């Protein structure tokens, strides 16, 4: 009974995606099924708007994540070692972007960048995305640091390691999984963001989600189905490879 419920919920979750996969192979542009065809995949690859915006989105997510890893990890590690008056305030304010409806941050950037006459471009996108990516890395690293035994670092220091050396040899390897976790989440959030990008993207730096949004708004777009199917395949391939890698790693470390 309870197992049945789990499967029903998962089925509802996957139903829309199965429909999209099926329709990506439909030779008709409209809803009626007219036979198998790969034409939408061909159109997808020939659609330069989609290919360009996909490149933009990947680049954006990469740079935002890299910056967020740097700022978020350094911040969380530093905060654990610091005691200062505005510490609680800084922590809460830096986490605001995760909590606020995205549209508020979007409008804030639109207004501020316009005021400062900063042209909307990849740079403004990276600033905006980094800002909402930081909290994911920060929170993840922070909760890992809380559970960390300070004796490891103290031991390294007692044995003569410099503070920097102790960080690179002890702290960093221990928090690396948390950094990766936070960064993966941040990457997914950046790749999926419509609302903030909608406000801060320039005409030459449109992101994939905003492009898909305007295509869906304007009408029937079977290429989107092909795009979604490819993404689905990519995600399950990544999960499979990750699982396989972990299994091999486990076996290797056991043997």
């Amino acid at each position, binding site marked *: 009974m309870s197992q049945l419920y789990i499967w029903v919920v998962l089925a509802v979750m996957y139903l*829309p995606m199965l429909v999209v996969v099926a329709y990506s192979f439909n030779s008709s542009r409209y809803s009626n099924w007219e036979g198998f065809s790969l034409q939408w995949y061909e159109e997808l690859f020939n659609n330069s708007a989609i290919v360009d915006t996909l490149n933009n989105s990947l680049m954006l997510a990469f740079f935002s994540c890299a910056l967020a890893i740097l700022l978020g990890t350094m911040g969380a590690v530093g905060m654990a070692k*610091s005691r200062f008056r505005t510490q609680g305030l800084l*922590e809460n304010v830096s986490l605001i972007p995760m909590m606020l409806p*995205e549209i508020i941050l979007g409008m804030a950037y639109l207004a501020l960048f316009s005021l400062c006459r900063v042209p909307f471009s990849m740079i403004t996108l990276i600033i905006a995305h980094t800002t909402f990516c930081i909290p994911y890395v920060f929170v993840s690293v922070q909760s890992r640091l809380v559970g960390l035994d300070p004796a490891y670092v103290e031991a390294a220091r007692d044995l003569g390691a410099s503070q920097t050396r102790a960080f690179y040899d002890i702290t960093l390897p221990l928090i690396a999984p948390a950094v990766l976790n936070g960064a993966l989440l941040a990457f997914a959030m950046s790749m999926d963001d419509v*609302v903030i990008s909608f406000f801060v993207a320039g005409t030459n730096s449109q992101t*994939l989600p905003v492009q898909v949004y305007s295509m869906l708004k304007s009408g029937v777009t079977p290429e989107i189905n092909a795009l979604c199917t490819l993404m689905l395949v990519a995600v399950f391939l990544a999960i499979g490879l990750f699982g396989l890698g972990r299994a091999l790693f486990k076996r290797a470390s056991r043997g």
Partner: protein
Amino acid sequence: MEKKRHISLSVWPLYIWTVLFVALPLVYVVVISFLQRGDTWGVTDQVTIDNYVKMVDPMYGSIFLETLAMAVLTTALTFLFGYPFAYYVCKLPARLRGVMILLLMAPFWINSLCRLNGWMILLKSNGVINSLLLNLGIIDEPLKLLYNFGAVVVGMVYALAPFMILSCYNSIEKMDWSVVEAARDLGASAWKAFVTVTLPLTMPGVVAGCVLVFVPSMGLFFISDLMGGAKTVLIGNLIRTELTAARNWPFGAALSMVMLLATVGIIWVYKRVSGSKSLGDLM
């Protein structure tokens, strides 16, 4: 031992970034919500409360109410469907648990618009569900499933349910089941034990889930735009229109303030219920 006050060097980049790109823009939004709009673009330096007075209009009142109704309904539905899911997954053996959560989260690596597109294909007047019902002879003409309030709720629940499930799951998984067993041993029925023991113990997760669903649901204008058609205008759509088409930033900023107040309100409730000091605990 009280440590001496000091600030580590590695905090500075985060500090500067937060002041420049979080605090400053938000303060600026507050400021322009009290300014007059410029003739063609931007704002003038005239201070006014007109933007707030304008919101008293019943037209905006009904938009606020509809947004609130949608957010509350979305939160309630994600809880009703999500909690049992999280609960049942926690009852599975540990190995299967991870697989189920992975299956649940995997779609969220795929563009949310692509997934929304699937619902649009399903619900369209010539879409999958209507064709199926027509061919089975259950209905004579297509039902209007898309472009209404209900469709927006479906889209929102679908987009946000995983946050609720994950939050509840984290709470339920950590719970000490022996407390429930004790209640059962002392004669409580399964339902009574659930209501008086399990649910209160997992309340922090439930409330965190509610925050994670309620707050974004107010601002996801693209869902109401695509699934609700022109008829369903929520506060998010209104803000977008004020910012882009109408170019009335001050009014858009004032509307954002309303949304901000609602957000602060629900986070306050969360902190009261969970006793948590940091926003980071929500994740």
